[in-house]
């Protein structure tokens, strides 16, 4: 477990963090605006492809196949990448990855590194670790630069600063770049970033990146981006270090023909993002003289062993599921207290922590299924959410406080009641009597007691009627044409 990550993200659970964020109307309106815009664009460019579902089928099948033979494809990648002049390193966890990357940077005596946006580096707390060792990481993606200079946290993994509007960005740049007269048009802000970074690209000798895809057959690496900051980092420095999760491998070069259609359309609503770079190893006279790939496990491999949740690792990080999620829409990304927010974060985060952290996240969903519908690799997120909830409950039931806690006792009692119709009807009659204590004068229940109180926090509840449906049904005369059976049988 990295200490860096903990310094970054608190261990508050989702409801607690969400409650605070819901008070911030500025963040909420920024998030709503940005997600609405991306979604509309996405729907437009996805809608124009008549073969979208076939692309999803192929994408899902390719990713599932790669995962089912991951050791085979990783070994193949390593061999091909090495043959092309790259160096492959393996890291079991965050600490090991940090050690490898730090060692490579120190070997070149670098005091600064330029970085392309990578959530994987956020996952291992790389920036904090480098700072602690006297190395200054410079984020070059516009949004990451906003986050870094604003001492903030990313809230979305395609548009990490989507919770900030232009005025807020201007304030950060004014202060941190020392530009008192900076305008607030997005063009002004982008041009300030261009000037600020250009000199660094030309000067800094080591770059750190993530990767979107690794290609097993020829050892190629693919990075998809918009601004050209990625291309700068990939080609100008002498040394390039790419930190990549082991799940990112694809069997063949041509498999990208699927993902380079589905990823840009899903992620930013563009037919193609401005730049894709694909390269193998090192090339005389073109790009870095030294290229390293650090393959990171960090508790990914055990996820492969769970047949129902393995699909989590199919993710290509397009963030379409965030943009469409009604929960994310309301809270934004910070409520997830995790590098990976939204529906995919809700299933990935707890698994990356072997279910010891992020245990409230699988509940941060209404299970509406919108995420599954948009996912370009068909990850059935609702199914995995329910599966993980089941795991959490099972684990809880093994502990004393879990087994005899109010929730479990309540749920067991409910299960007992619902299993028999006579018990249910008895409970209804007791409820009709008991509710007299909580029904208010205007005839609704405004406040339920104790653990049920959450339900009535923001809504009233109708009381049980004097005659239940079951009573009414039982007293009804069977009509001639519908042979209604009056007798009920217990289902026990």
């Amino acid at each position: 477990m990295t200490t860096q990550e903990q310094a970054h993200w608190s261990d508050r659970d989702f409801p607690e963090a969400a409650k605070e964020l819901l008070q911030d109307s500025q963040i909420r309106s920024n998030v709503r605006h940005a997600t609405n815009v991306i979604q509309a664009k996405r729907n437009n460019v996805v809608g124009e492809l008549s073969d979208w579902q076939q692309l999803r089928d192929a994408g899902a099948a390719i990713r599932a196949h790669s995962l089912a033979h991951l050791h085979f494809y990783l070994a193949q990648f390593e061999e091909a990448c090495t043959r092309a002049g790259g160096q492959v390193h393996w890291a079991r966890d965050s600490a090991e990855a940090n050690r490898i990357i730090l060692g490579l940077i120190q070997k070149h005596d670098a005091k600064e590194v330029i970085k392309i946006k990578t959530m994987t580096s956020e996952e291992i707390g790389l920036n904090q670790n480098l700072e602690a060792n006297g190395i200054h990481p410079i984020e070059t993606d516009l949004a990451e630069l906003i986050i870094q200079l604003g001492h903030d946290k990313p809230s979305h993994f395609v548009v990490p600063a989507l919770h900030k509007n232009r005025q807020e960005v201007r304030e950060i740049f004014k202060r941190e770049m020392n530009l008192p007269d900076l305008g607030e048009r997005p063009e002004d802000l982008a041009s300030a970033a261009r000037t600020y970074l250009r000199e660094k690209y030309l000067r800094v000798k080591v770059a750190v990146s993530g990767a979107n895809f690794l290609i097993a057959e020829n050892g190629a690496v693919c990075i998809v981006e918009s601004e050209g900051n990625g291309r700068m980092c990939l080609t100008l420095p002498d040394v390039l270090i790419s930190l990549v999760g082991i799940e990112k491998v694809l069997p063949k070069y041509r498999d990208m023909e699927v993902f380079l259609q589905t990823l840009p359309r899903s992620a930013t609503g563009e037919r193609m993002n401005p730049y894709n770079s694909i390269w193998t190893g090192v090339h005389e006279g073109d790009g870095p003289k030294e290229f390293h790939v650090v393959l990171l496990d960090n508790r990914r491999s055990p996820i492969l062993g769970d047949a129902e949740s393995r699909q989590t690792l199919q993710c290509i990080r397009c963030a379409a599921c965030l943009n469409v999620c009604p929960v994310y829409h309301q809270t934004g990304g910070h409520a997830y207290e995790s590098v990976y927010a939204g529906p995919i974060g809700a299933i990935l985060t707890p698994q990356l922590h072997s279910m010891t952290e992020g245990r409230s996240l699988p509940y941060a969903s209404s299970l509406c299924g919108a995420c599954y519908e948009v996912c370009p690799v068909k990850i059935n997120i609702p199914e995995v959410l329910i599966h993980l909830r089941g795991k959490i409950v099972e684990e809880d039931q093994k502990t004393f406080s879990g087994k005899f806690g109010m929730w479990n006792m309540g749920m067991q009692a409910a299960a007992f009641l619902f299993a028999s119709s006579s018990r249910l009807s008895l409970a209804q009659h007791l409820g009709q009597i008991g509710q007299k204590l909580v029904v208010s004068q205007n005839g609704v229940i405004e406040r339920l007691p104790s653990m049920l109180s959450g339900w009535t926090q923001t809504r009233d509840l109708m009381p049980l009627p004097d005659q239940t449906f079951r009573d009414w049904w039982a007293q009804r005369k069977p009509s001639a044409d519908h042979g209604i059976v009056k007798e009920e049988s217990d289902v026990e």
Partner: protein
Amino acid sequence: MSNSSDARTAILNSIRSALGRSMDASGIAAEYDAIPRAYKREGTLGRDALMDLFAHRLAEYDAGVTRCSVEKISEEIARILEARGRRKIAIPGGLPDGWLPKGLDFEVGTHFDDYQLDRMDGVLTGCTVAIAATGSIVLQNAAAQGPRILSLVPDYHLCVVFAEQVVETVPESFAQLDGMSALPTTFFSGPSATADIEMTRIKGVHGPRFLDVVLVV
């Protein structure tokens, strides 16, 4: 690094034991070949419609697009550079001599360092293949295209695309690239851009801010 080889073994073992069963290479290959690929691979448009689609997509990215015949390439290049007021132009090796108009300052891009490149007015290249459906152009480190930084550092890019190089779909482009997949490859679709601030597309952050395409038909 013995530590690294320990890590390698540990990770591969952990994956193997999580997956449970293992197939041999031919079994894996057979499973791979059975992956459903019912998506559209071949384009259906005729040549004129294809050119129109490509030009339309580029224009949507705010790139300038003009068409000319093979004989008129250098004239067209001269006209565009004049209109843009760009004089000091970097070029890759292997660019056909016939493309270069007289009277402008062309320098072959392998000779200068990054800083010098930064001071050029622009860059002129050809391409490997272009995709009409997405308005994308693919460059590789090959003749008339050069190393990756050449088309990255200058603020202006003028790209010559021949009609025969334009395909309709992304899979068609990969069919062509497959044989040359070891070359450093860049897909670009319009000038560099970002939507990081309030989802407004802004042209030109770090790559070239201005892009013109000469379509040779």
